């Protein structure tokens, strides 16, 4: 207790139950079922920190629909550092729901692709061969499919039925950003309230939504590659369509909320909670990697 003559400090009960962040009309409240996935797939992953003058936040959260049905999160993320070249390598992937083990496909794609970039940087030849990076990720999916089904002759087509996934990979060194993608997982440079699409130009929302998706391992062509400069007032965003759909180009209240909250790097757990916002009709998995550039 306090000494005589001094007032007691105000005691406040710690309150954790804050409920979801809501943007617009909330989605229904449900109690999530654990996903019975093999290998283990946690509902939410969150990561973040600083490296090479960059600040990064990353999270992947299971969509409401899969929480309702007990399905596994089919999005995944991966961060990797390449010390010699001072490069941050980040990847997000969105497993195609029609593929039976696309959760594993997404997990393999982000890990193998970031490892492939790191190996190329090890060789010190300079530029990144993105076609090679995506080929190696695709090959990892085919190999996993062969291992799982015991058919050493199984090809890309068969692997696509079980492990199909989009893939978006970025290499950030200082303010230099290179991004490559197969499929509809987009990257943006967020400056103020403006979302500038870097790759995977989002759907034209004046038309109908839909039209299938390009995915590994059966990609119709080389990845789309883009290079940008990460200025001190900008944030690089890598995300899956579970966020890109409600973001809808960034003009609405989702875009406004994200822009405001990401004006500075939030706490890691708050970042995941922000990504897990509740909004009616949007119940897909969401992943987001945000990178703030070096301060000038």
């Amino acid at each position: 207790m306090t000494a005589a003559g001094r007032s007691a400090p105000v005691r406040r009960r710690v309150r954790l139950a804050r409920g979801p962040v809501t943007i617009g009309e909330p989605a229904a409240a449900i109690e999530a079922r654990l996903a019975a996935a093999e290998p283990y797939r946690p509902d939410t992953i969150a990561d973040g920190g600083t490296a090479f003058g960059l600040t990064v936040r990353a999270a992947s959260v299971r969509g409401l629909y899969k929480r309702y049905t007990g399905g596994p999160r089919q999005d995944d993320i991966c961060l990797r550092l390449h010390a010699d070249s001072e490069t941050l390598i980040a990847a997000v992937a969105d497993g195609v729901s029609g593929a039976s083990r696309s959760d594993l496909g997404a997990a393999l794609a982000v890990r193998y692709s970031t490892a492939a970039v790191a190996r190329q940087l090890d060789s010190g030849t300079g530029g990144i061969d993105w076609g090679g990076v995506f080929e190696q990720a695709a090959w990892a999916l085919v190999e996993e499919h062969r291992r799982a089904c015991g058919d050493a002759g199984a090809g890309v087509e068969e692997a696509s039925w079980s492990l199909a996934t989009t893939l978006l990979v970025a290499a950030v060194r200082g303010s230099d950003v290179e991004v490559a993608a197969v499929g509809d997982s987009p990257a943006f440079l967020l400056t103020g309230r403006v979302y500038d699409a870097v790759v995977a130009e989002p759907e034209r929302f004046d038309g109908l939504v839909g039209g299938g998706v390009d995915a590994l391992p059966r990609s119709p062509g080389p990845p789309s590659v883009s290079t940008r400069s990460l200025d001190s007032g900008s944030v690089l965003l890598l995300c899956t369509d579970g966020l890109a759909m409600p973001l809808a180009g960034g003009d609405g209240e989702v875009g406004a909320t994200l822009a405001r909250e990401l004006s500075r790097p939030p706490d890691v757990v708050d970042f995941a909670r922000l990504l897990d916002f509740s909004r009616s009709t949007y119940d897909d998995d969401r992943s987001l990697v945000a990178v703030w550039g070096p301060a000038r």
Partner: protein
Amino acid sequence: MKIKLPSNMRAGASMGAGAPDPPEPVTTPLAAPVAPMVPPPVAAAGVEPESGSAPASGPALWAGEQAPAGSVIGQVLPMYFVGDESHSMAGEPIAAVNQGLIDLRDEVAKHPLIGKKVRFGIITFAETAQTRLELSELSEELALPTLAPRGRGTSYASAFEALRQTIPADVALLKGNGYQVHRPSVFFLSDGLPTEKADKWKQRLAELKDPSFRERPNILAFGVGEADPAVIGQLASSPRYGFMMTTGASTAGAIAEFAASMLNSMVASAERLDRGEQTIEFEKPEGFVQLDAPLV
């Protein structure tokens, strides 16, 4: 046939699953800034709620955000039931249709996530086509029409023409209200042959399926009773989407199975909305054979 609703579904769309206490108002920013690497924003990140602009129990942090005019508020999948109301449907068949529609409404209305994502309309045809239910959200309060045999003819052309007129108007209305709209689906059910010249309905069908018709729907076609499998097969938008009742089965029983499949398709398709798949999720109903129909 019923969708089993897991016990983790809660009534209503209240906030805070798993959080028995209502959240306390939050007046601090979600994200306590950590090592800011960019200049702080001009406006404070945490804003006081504007009265009436927030969900009752939502964190006040989000309340100040107003949806800009014309911004996206949700995503929807329009689905149409196009049913035969000709005299041959009298008795048990039309009763089975009516019961199937009631079950569909009740099951979708009970579902915590699907109801908001689907819009359902009913068009019937005999000598002429009639819109019996404007595209609607399937809530428990929704009053459904009671279909009854009328007229002598069976005009497929009138049904296709009605769809050709209705769908673009419905899509435009949904978009105007701020929705991202997925490709509409049509469930077509007939128990007989068209009573008009083949050229006429084929022409109207071609207009509905025309690739330059931006809102062209996915069409699933079901034949029962005296319907001609060769005709039904031509109506479907994909060879996989044409179905004919098994020879010798009960028409009313087959209709009940059709209605159950329509419900399951609605649920499965709405589940995958975020993926942007162009194809609709559908499994062959019991008592039907899949027609290997050529594309028209």
